């Protein structure tokens, strides 16, 4: 049981954006995907959400080829929190979260008790119960992102795919998003999270995959992966790595002259 990416080649036009990409997400773990801009993170997300067909190699979900899985069935096992979610006007939070039940209902069947229960559970799991009757477009950015996560959880998926879920959020909401996700993972969900912030990735992920120019250049626990040598090389800038709370902390290495004077 896992999502497996094997020997994946994918891209647009002539070149390959992903070359021989391999990774694996197991239930009950958070796999972080990191790498500089243009490394292929977004392309990987596009392949996993079937917006881009691989050139060769492939993806399996619980042993079955991604391309062969039915739409509704795929949506029942893999839920996506997109990078820039759209929340239409005129819908309450509860109504939006209930849309997460679509893969279980199809387009015609009316809601059942178990659907309402799944929605209630998703609202509780993301602390959005108090917002349930508010119109979603009136919420703050952080609250909206929680609503989108709640919609994904209402799908009751086995895997979560989060594409930079902490973008544009302030510190508190970043931490909350990752905490809610962690709780689901503790219940057996497998999560693949694309993250920009190396230190959030370090704290939050069980394992990390580092992409550079479409290739996986390192894979392992944050401690194994986030070394001064590797991060400096991949990101093309010198960093210092400290250890705080048993996890690596990456700090840009600025030359003496570039540091702000300490008054």
């Amino acid at each position: 049981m896992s999502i497996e990416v094997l020997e994946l080649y994918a891209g647009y036009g002539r070149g390959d954006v992903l070359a021989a990409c391999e990774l694996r997400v197991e239930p009950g773990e958070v796999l972080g995907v990191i790498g500089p801009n243009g490394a292929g993170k977004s392309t990987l997300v596009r392949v996993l959400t079937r917006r881009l067909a691989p050139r060769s190699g492939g993806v399996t979900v619980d042993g079955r080829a991604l391309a062969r899985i039915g739409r509704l069935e795929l949506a029942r096992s893999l839920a996506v929190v997109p990078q820039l979610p759209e929340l239409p006007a005129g819908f309450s939070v509860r109504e939006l979260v209930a849309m997460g039940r679509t893969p279980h209902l199809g387009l015609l069947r009316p809601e059942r008790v178990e659907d309402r229960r799944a929605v209630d559970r998703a609202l509780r799991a993301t602390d959005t119960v108090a917002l349930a009757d508010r119109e979603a477009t009136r919420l703050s950015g952080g609250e909206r992102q929680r609503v989108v996560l709640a919609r994904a959880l209402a799908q009751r998926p086995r895997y979560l795919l989060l594409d930079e879920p902490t973008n544009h959020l302030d510190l508190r909401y970043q931490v909350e998003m990752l905490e809610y996700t962690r709780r689901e993972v503790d219940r057996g969900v497998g999560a693949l999270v694309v993250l920009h912030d190396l230190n959030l990735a370090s704290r939050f992920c069980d394992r990390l995959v580092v992409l550079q120019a479409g290739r996986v250049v390192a894979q392992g626990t944050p401690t194994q992966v986030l070394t001064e040598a590797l991060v400096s090389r991949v990101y093309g800038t010198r960093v210092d790595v400290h250890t705080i709370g048993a996890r690596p902390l990456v700090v840009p290495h600025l030359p003496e002259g570039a540091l702000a004077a300490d008054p």
Partner: protein
Amino acid sequence: MAPVVLSLVALVVVLVAAASVGSVAIRPFALVAAVVDGVQGHAHGPAETIVWQLRLPRVLLAALVGSALALAGATFQGVFRNPLADPYLLGAASGAGFGASAVLVLAGSVPWLTRLGVPGAAFACALATVVLVMVLARRDGGLPAVSLILAGVVLGSILSAGTSFLMLAARDRAAGILSWLLGSFAFASWDRVLSVLPLLVVATVPLLLAGRALDVMQLGEESAAQLGVPVERVRLALLAAATLATAAAVAVAGVIGFVGLVVPHAVRLAFGARHMRLLPLSALWGAVFLVLADLFARTVLAPAELPVGIVTALVGGPFFLLLLRRQRSR
């Protein structure tokens, strides 16, 4: 459920009122008697005949056309996620207008056009125009919204130019064309009611069932697809059904504007944006709106009639401008 029941009651009240009012006022009791007699196939007095032969088909046709246009409008707005979309966005109106003008001008000299008749030509040209727009807008097996709208606008302009040309070329027929283009229920008959009814049922049933699909599609194509909705197929099916409803409505009543644009907005403001409610309520209030507009059109200058499209535009125009202002200030 309550809003639907409330709206149904409103529709029945409006239908009864509209059937009672006219050059000859008819008391509700006589109305019921006329309906009973008519259904049994024998109308007695002159009042019963007026009700059964003139008023009822006219009121019912206005209700059917109004509900078809409003439902199609709500569907177009939902599919394109654009509040300014209306049933004529993809060229159905200009196609129908061109077809109707061609018959009005050429009838007499081209026998098969005469046999097709104005409603037949309007229906066929409306459908053909939208199909052509879809063919022109196809990109890599998909139907991107932007190219659909552009193709619809451009083809619509070409056909409108054709209609204008026909009006100038046959000046003696221009008034007839213009009054058809503005829409009217003056030619309502049971034949017309019964000829559009099956088309509207076929088009309406899938649209009324599309509530969840349209709701989820408001999240954007990507998210809808990730929730398991076959976005392209659903969009094509809904556009086809909405176009069928629009073409049938335009064929029997001419081009009546603003119903399909304004009614869904009013319903959305009053009852919320969820399509499971919005679609049936748009159909009901579209019927109410157009029955009242037609009542106004045939009574305000009686015995003369206003084209009903002028009445809907007089009410709908200002509302539309208000909407535009709100859109901009956002």
